[in-house]
C-alpha cells in the first residue's frame, strides 16, 4: 500500500510583475514503504513547494495529497506525526543541547514519554553524537549539526521521511555520510522522499526518480526504465531530454 499519495496537486502564487505563477501544476505520484523516491529538478522547478505541501506548511491550491492515509488539508496534525521533515530552512534551536533537542522533539511529536529517553540515547549512539550531546547546538560544527538535525528528523520514528536538498552546503565526507544514513533508513522499511538537483546523488540513491520541470512531472520511473525510454545512459542526458521536450511542447516563456 502506498504511504504517500499525491493526486493532481497544484500550487499557485501571485507575483507583481508576472501575475499568477503555477509553481506546482497538477502533479501525481505515489511512494511505497522501503523506497527512496527522488524529485529531480533544476532550481525553481517546484520540488520544495511540493515537499512543503506534503509537510503541511503550504496549503495546496487544488488537488489532494495524503501521508499514511491522512489528508494534508483535513488532517495536518496526523500527517506531521507520521512525517520527518528536514530542509535547509528547518534549523535547530541554538540554545538547546543536542540531547535536549532530541528529547523535546520526541515529546512534542507524540512519542510515548516513557520510551523517549531510551530512544534519544539510542539515536545519540547510532549517530555518534555522544561526545557533544550535552553541548549547545550553537557551539557545534556544520557536520555535527547535520547529524543532530537528522536524528531530530527521525526521533519520533515516523514511517515517512522527507529530505529537501539534504546535501546542500555539506562537504564531500559529510555528503557521503548523509547518503549512507538515507540508505540505512530504506533498509528499515521507511519511505524516503528527497529532492535534489545533483544528478549523481539521484543516480546513486533513488529507486525511482520523478523528473520535475516547470511545475510538472515530465517522467517518473526507475533509472533503467528511464534509460530505456530515452536511449540515454547518463541521468544528466535523460534530464535534458525531458526538459527540452517540455520546453518545445510549451509556447516559449515570456521574457522577464
Amino acid at each position, binding site marked *: 500500500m502506498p504511504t504517500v499519495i499525491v493526486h493532481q496537486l497544484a500550487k499557485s502564487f501571485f507575483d*507583481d510583475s508576472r501575475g499568477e505563477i503555477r509553481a506546482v501544476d497538477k502533479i501525481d505520484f505515489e511512494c511505497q514503504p522501503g523506497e527512496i523516491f527522488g524529485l529531480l529538478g533544476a532550481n525553481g522547478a517546484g520540488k520544495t513547494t511540493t515537499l512543503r505541501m506534503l509537510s503541511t506548511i503550504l496549503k495546496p491550491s487544488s488537488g489532494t495529497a495524503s501521508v499514511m492515509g491522512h489528508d494534508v488539508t483535513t488532517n495536518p496534525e496526523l500527517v506531521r506525526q507520521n512525517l520527518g521533515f528536514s530542509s535547509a530552512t528547518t534549523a535547530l534551536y541554538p540554545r538547546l543541547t543536542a540531547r535536549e533537542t532530541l528529547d523535546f522533539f520526541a515529546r512534542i511529536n*507524540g512519542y510515548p514519554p516513557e520510551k523517549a529517553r531510551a530512544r534519544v540515547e539510542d539515536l545519540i549512539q547510532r549517530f555518534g553524537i555522544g561526545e557533544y550531546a550535552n553541548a549547545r547546538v550553537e557551539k557545534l560544527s556544520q557536520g555535527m549539526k547535520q547529524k543532530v538535525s537528522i536524528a531530530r528528523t527521525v526521533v519520533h520514528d515516523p514511517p515517512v521521511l522527507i529530505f529537501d536538498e539534504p546535501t546542500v552546503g555539506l562537504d564531500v565526507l559529510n555528503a557521503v555520510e548523509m547518503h549512507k544514513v538515507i540508505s540505512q533508513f530504506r533498509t528499515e522499511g521507511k519511505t524516503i522522499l528527497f529532492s535534489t538537483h545533483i544528478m549523481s546523488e539521484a543516480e546513486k540513491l533513488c529507486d525511482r526518480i520523478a523528473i520535475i520541470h516547470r511545475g510538472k512531472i515530465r517522467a517518473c520511473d526507475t533509472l533503467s526504465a528511464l534509460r530505456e525510454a530515452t536511449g540515454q545512459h547518463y541521468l544528466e542526458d535523460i534530464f535534458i531530454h525531458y526538459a527540452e521536450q517540455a520546453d518545445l511542447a510549451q509556447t516559449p516563456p515570456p521574457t522577464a
Partner: protein
Amino acid sequence: MKGSFLRILTLFLIEIRMTLRDRRSVFASIILPIIITPLLLFSSNWTVKKREHKLQETVYQYVVTGSNVSFVKSTIDLTQKRLAQQTNSTNHFRFQETNYTDALTALNQGQIHFILEGLTPAEAAIKRGKSKSVTRKRDSIDPELRVGILVPGIRVIFRADRDDSMAGMNKMVDALETTRHLQRNLLLHSKGMPQSASDFATLEETNVATKGHVAGLALGRVATVLLLGFILMGGIVVATDMLAGEKERGTLETLLTSSMTRFEIVAAKHLAILSVAITITLIQTLNLLAYASFKLVPLPSNFIEALPPSTVFLLAILYLPVAALASSVLLFTSGVARSYKEAQLYFTPVFLLLLVPALSPILPGLTLRSAIVLVPLSNVALAVRDILVGSFDWPMILLSWLITTGTALWVAWMSVRVLSEERLVTSGEKDATDYVGGFKLFSRQAPFWFAAMWAILLIVSNYTPQNDIRIQLFINLIVIFLGACFLMIRKYHLNPREVLALRRPRSTAFLAVLIGVPGGMLTAIGLFRFASLFFPIPQKMLESFSETLLPSNMGTFQLLLFMAILPGIIEEITFRGVLLHSLHKRLHPVLLVLIVGIVFGFFHMALFRFAPTAFLGILLSAVTILTGSIFPSMLWHALNNGFALLSNSQDIISQLEPIYYLAGPVLLGCSFWILWRDRTPYPELRLSKSKNNTRQKK
C-alpha cells in the same frame, strides 16, 4: 486533550529554559531594569538635594541701580530687619549688595545674581504701561494701579537661563512683596481699617475625602501605565525572540512541521511571554515598594491603608487580562514581522497603541459609564482608578474585564491565524489575496476600517462642541460614514450596485416595512421597559437622551431631514450596504444579521442606546438579507426614526397600555412572514459549511 496539554507544557518549559539561557534577554529585561531603577532614583534624589542645598547656601549678590536708589535701599533695609527676626525659618534667604559699574555685564557674566533697579513714580508708570514678559507683573492687581496714583517701583532684572539667578529673583521678589504687604497693612491700620485686608471675611476649605482616597486617585491615574510599561519592557525582548527571532533562525519551520498544532504553539508561547511579563512586573513592583520603604520614592503617607488585601486581589484579577492583552499583542506583532529587525520596527507604534488607552485616567471628565467602557485597556485603567478612589461600579468593572479579556483572546487567535499565513511563515512567497485585491482583500480589511471609523467617531463625539447637533450629524454621517464607504469602494475597485445592494425589491416588501416599523418599535420599547424592571436605568440618563436627540431650535422639516431621512439613507449604506457585504461570504446568515446589528448598536456610542439600536440593526439586517435590497431597510430606518421623533414630542410612549406592547411582536411577525414568503435572498450567502469548504479549495 491530555496530549495537547502535555505538548503545550513541554514547549512552554523549553521556551522558558531558552529565555533564561539567553543572557541578552535576561540582562535586558530583568537585570538592567533592577539596576537602572535604583540608580535613576538615587541619582535624581541626589541631584535634587544637592541643588537645593547649594541654592540654600548661596549668598545672593546684587547691584542696586536706577534713579531711585534710595527707595530700593530703604525697602531692602526693612526686609532685612524683618528677615532677621525670623530666626526659626529653615528657608533662610541671605543677600548682599555689591558694586559694579556695569551691572548688566556683571549679571551676564555671572558675577551677580540679579539687579534691583529703583524707579521713580513717573518711570514706574511708564514701565508698567509697556512691561514685557521678562518683568514680573506681580503687582498688576495692586489697587494703586487702578486708581492711577503714582508710586515708586522696583524692577528685578535677572537671567531665566540660570538656576541661581532665577531662584534669587524669586526669593527677592517674594521677600519684597511680603515687606510691602506688611507696610500696606500698617498704613491701613493707622487710618482706622482692620488689621489686615483679609479680615473683611474669612475663607476656608474642607476636604471630605480621606487621605487614602487622595492617595488612591494619585496612584490610580498612573498605575495602569506604569504596570503596562513594566510588562512591555519585560515581554518585548522575549516576544521578539519567540516568533520573529525563530523565523530568522529558521527554527519556526522545524516547529511547524512537528505534530504540534498552531494553537498549541501560540498557547505555549503566549504563556511563556505572560509568565516573563508577570515575573518582571512583580519584581519591579517589589523593587518600587522596597525603595518606597527607604523613602527613595515619595509615596503618599496613607498609601498602604488605601490598599486592603481584598483590593489588591481585585486589582490583580483586573490586571490579568491587561497582561494577557499586552502579551498577545507582542506575540502577534512578532508573528507578523518576518525578521528581528522588522519586529523592532513595529514595536514603537505598538507601545503607543497600548500606552495611550492606559493613559485615559489622566484625561479629565472620562467616566467608566460611557462608550469608553468598550475600549479595552482604557476601561480597566478607569476601573482601577475608580476602585482606588473607593467607588465600585460592579457591572461596569465586569464589562471592562470581559471586553479586555475578549480582546486578549481575539489577538491571540489572530496570532494562530498568522502562523497559518504562508507569506508570513515561509520566506518570499506572498499571499495571493494581497495581489488579487478586490472583494477578498476588502472582506479581510473591512473590520479594520470599521474599527477606525468607530475610534474617530468616539473622539469626535467626545471632543466637539455639542451646541449644534446638525454639525455633529454632518461630520458623523457625511464625512465619516459616507466618506469611508466611498474610499472603500474606490480602493478595492468594488461594484457599488453589488456592495450597496441596489436592487429592486418586490413591492410586498414595502408593505411588510409599513407593518414592521410600528411592530418593531412597540416590541423594542416593550422589551426595554421589561428589562428596566430588572436593571433600573437612571431617570437623568433618559432625560439627557431626549434632550440631545430633540434640540428645540429645529423646525419639523429639518428635524425629519437630519434625524430620519439622512440617517435612514447613509447609515443603511454604511451598515446594511458596505459592512454587510464585506461579511456576507464569511458568516452564516444568522450570525451575519446578529453581528451587523450589534456593530450598528456599538456605533451609537452611548451605552444605554446600545440595546435598542442593536435590536433595530438586527431587524434591518434581516430585512436586507431577505429582500436582497437596501431600499426596504432604508425606508424602515427612516420611518422608525420619524416615528420615534413623533412619539417623543407627543409623549405617546408613556401613555401606552401594556396591551399595546403585545401587539408589537404580532405586527413584527406578520411583517417578517410577508418578507419570508416573498423572499428574494441576498446573493451568495454562506448557507452551509460544505459550500464554504468548496469555496476555500478553489
